[in-house]
């Protein structure tokens, strides 16, 4: 019964993606109500199944339910054994018994104290946002597109949250990234959202690359991509890894890089306010609530690695603290409500990261859930929130601006720093992107000259 519920949790958004994908590809004319009702049905089914699993876990005191759909891809070890002999391949490859799979991609989902709250939160918030968006985007030309991307996002979040293997988590992680970038560029007849969407995607791709290398390294080190295998015998958060500390630091740093990209930690914080170019419902559910917490979720999921390496935990705390200071300063000078809320989100996310680095496990989880719900509410009522804020300032009689000359000078420097958002974007552009593209553009010019000369043409 629990297996069926687990399958329903994953299957309902997958069916939604298939339905919306096919109808979009065939350019079928589907009424708005059909889209919103299908989404509601998928969300309710998945939510009911997730709540069922939670109830069963509470009743039976079972702290981990695994649902395996079998090997998606399986390559037996016999061949590699042979190749190992032939080419001097790795000893681990050669030592596998013949009937043991050497490479297997298992579709496995794990419901534990971390994933179940995340799955339920995802369903609740996506359900609320889809109901909100069905009115907010009524008769908008991109209504179908929005719901298609939302379904991809929902599937990606559920796969990431309930993943039982690092590869399945990566599967969902990528879907979240793509849907996020496309939704930032939702109003695509304007240049701004498109440029910002591409920027978000670029950061995500680099974070994904770090994730993929980390996942492969982990797979290589632990011999399996299963989280249960990684965490040894214990269930989350009590698992323990049996990997050399040096390797833990390397793999952990890769995952930290991935988490920093996904959760907009320093130095990647610049994309978060840019992501607010998308429609308000997507901003609320993606960057205020769910997607921005995915990096923190990853850190919680690999918490056995953090427990194994104090240096890695220290790096997590440092990164969180740096982001917190930066976001606090930047949030105070924003002049529009969505940017202000974006940095407010970032402050909370960075505090959550610090909590994770300090060794807390349940506290950040509770923090994530509380923060996600509050921020979704704030973002969907952003226009009226501004009005509320003005009323509050009026009631207080204005904000005190009196400062001494020394304070004023320091204040101005900090103000400039905050207004420029710490120059993070320009530093990345100037010192990473520009040298890289300059070399490539020079190469392109040289190649063109060379082919022109070779073909006897003058360009």
């Amino acid at each position, binding site marked *: 019964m629990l297996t069926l519920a687990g399958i329903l949790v994953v299957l309902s958004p997958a069916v939604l993606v298939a339905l919306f994908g096919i109808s979009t590809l065939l350019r079928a004319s589907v009424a708005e109500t059909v889209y919103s009702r299908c989404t509601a049905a998928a969300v309710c089914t998945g939510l009911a199944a997730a709540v069922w699993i939670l109830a069963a876990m509470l009743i039976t005191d079972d702290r981990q339910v695994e649902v395996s759909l079998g090997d998606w891809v399986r*390559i037996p070890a016999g*061949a590699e054994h042979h190749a190992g002999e032939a080419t*001097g*391949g790795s000893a681990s490859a050669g030592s596998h018994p013949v009937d043991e799979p050497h490479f297997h991609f298992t579709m496995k989902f794990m419901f534990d104290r971390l994933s179940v709250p995340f799955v339920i939160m995802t369903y609740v918030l996506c359900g609320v946002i889809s109901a909100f968006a069905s009115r907010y985007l009524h008769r908008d030309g991109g209504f179908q597109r929005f719901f298609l991307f939302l379904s991809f996002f929902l599937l990606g979040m559920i796969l990431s949250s309930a993943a039982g293997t690092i590869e399945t988590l990566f599967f969902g992680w990528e879907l979240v990234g793509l849907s996020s970038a496309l939704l930032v560029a939702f109003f695509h*007849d304007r240049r701004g959202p498109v440029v910002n969407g*591409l920027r978000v*995607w670029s950061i995500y791709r680099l974070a994904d*690359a770090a994730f993929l290398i980390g996942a492969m390294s982990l797979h290589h080190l632990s011999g399996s991509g299963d989280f249960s295998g990684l965490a040894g015998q214990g269930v989350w958060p009590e698992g323990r890894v049996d990997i050399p500390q040096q390797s833990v630091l390397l793999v952990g740093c890769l995952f930290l890089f991935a988490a920093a990209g996904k959760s907009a930690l320093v130095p990647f914080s610049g994309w978060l306010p840019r992501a607010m170019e998308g429609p308000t419902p997507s901003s609320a559910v993606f960057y205020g609530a769910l997607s921005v917490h995915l990096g923190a979720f990853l850190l919680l999921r690999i918490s056995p690695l953090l427990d194994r390496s104090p240096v890695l935990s220290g790096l997590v705390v440092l990164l969180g603290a740096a982001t917190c200071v930066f976001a606090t300063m930047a949030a105070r000078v924003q002049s529009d409500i969505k940017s202000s809320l974006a940095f407010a989100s970032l402050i909370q996310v960075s505090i959550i990261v610090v909590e994770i680095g300090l060794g807390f496990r349940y506290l950040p989880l509770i923090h994530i859930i509380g923060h996600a719900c509050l921020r979704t509410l704030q973002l969907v009522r952003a226009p009226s929130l501004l009005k509320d804020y003005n009323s509050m300032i009026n009631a207080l009689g204005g904000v005190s601006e009196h400062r001494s000359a020394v304070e004023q000078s320091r204040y101005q420097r900090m103000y400039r720093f905050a207004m420029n958002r710490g120059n993070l974007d320009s530093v990345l552009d100037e010192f990473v992107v520009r040298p890289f593209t300059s070399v490539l553009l020079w190469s392109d010019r040289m190649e063109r000259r060379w*082919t022109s000369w070779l073909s006897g043409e003058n360009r």
Partner: protein
Amino acid sequence: MIQELHFPWLEVGIVLPLAGAGLCACLADSVRAQKVAILVAGLTLLLAVGEWADFAMVGSFEAHDHWDLAQRLTGRDNILVIDELSAPLPALSALLFLLTILSTLRTKLDRFSMSLTLFSESIVLATLSCHDPWLLIVLLSLAVVPPWIELVRRGVSPRVFLIHMGASIVLLVAGRMLLGDVSSGGQASGLSAALLTAAALLRAGVVPVHCWMADLLEKATFGTAILFLTPMTGAFAVMHLVLPVVPVWAIRSIAILSLITAVYSAGMALVQKDARRFFCYLFLSHSSLVLSGLELVNVIGMTGALCVWISVGLSLTGFGLTIRAVESRVGRIALDRFHGMYEHTPTLAGLFLLTGLASIGFPGTIGFVGMELLIEGCVEVYPLVGLSLVLASALNGISILRAWFRIFTGVPLQSSVSLKSQFSERFAVVLLVLLILGGGLWPQPGVASRHHAAKSLMDLRHQRAAAKSHP
């Protein structure tokens, strides 16, 4: 003893498009010529699929045609042989030719020659089933002819293309002549190995001898360029002509240069201002990934490379056909501005994104598992190589979305005529998308088949290595 297929699939599959090419050349009406070409390419695809299915039923590592007419005519053994590595490649190539012919708009028929295309198809199919080194060199030389004729007809200079291809062929011939007898597991001498390696690098378009590819894409019709590149006969030639006979240093040189090409081309794709050049570097990056994976010394990595070979063939052809469809509406596509095509061709926009993402191994597409296997294999043997592969893939992902944004977003293009995609164009790309998604959601049969091929290749290498150490 090589097993025999139940029908001369290979020979009929080669002769049929050749006859079709002759017939099309006689037809003055280009629309009728296209219809004939579609029929011939469709039948050729059926034959190629039949050959694949028959080979699977035979269940051996290698098989030759029933009756083997080539042997009777030439008196030489095993000229046209299909093996585990090449079994799906003729079917893949035949599909690519059919879909390219099918999606050619009537307005482009005067530029895109059906007879030359069918001639190319015949040559490609013969190349992919040829095991005789000298005949393979002849076929690689003949494959150069159709693009050359087209470049001349279009009044553009074919010099860059001809210099590179000519040099490749001369080096191949010289290398083979110096090679001597290697049938008993012998190895090429230093000079011979160097010549063969240089020939392989030229043909595969490895940096720094890759400029012919961009030149061809800029000057030839997009269809001809796609069909010359995407069957990846260069990689096939490297597998059969170069890797089995050259020493380890030469294999490593090809692998390292391929890897550099993969990363360099991925970066170059990111800064291109012309869609054709962008496609060129994207393709080059992917084909180099395949080439570098083929030189890996473990089965997992090689399985990944063979899977990526198939996925790149499907996805980048679909991607190229989508760019071609857009180009046929708005002319050459500049990527330094926004074209706003989404409102006119939303289906093409979706297909562009899907095929592009499939090429980088996005989850749910045919390339996902292949890329995972390739990176896994690399990380196991050379961690730095794995890092480079991931970097190349990340850069390719960024450039694909950048191109999508530039072509399909922006202020909607104002047009007095309908720019909607035609049924034949949609059909071609949708069929590829179905294969891409089907292979992505149900990857086990494809992976198992490629794994078996990789295992057999490894065994073959092992036998050769053993023969070298115990002559």
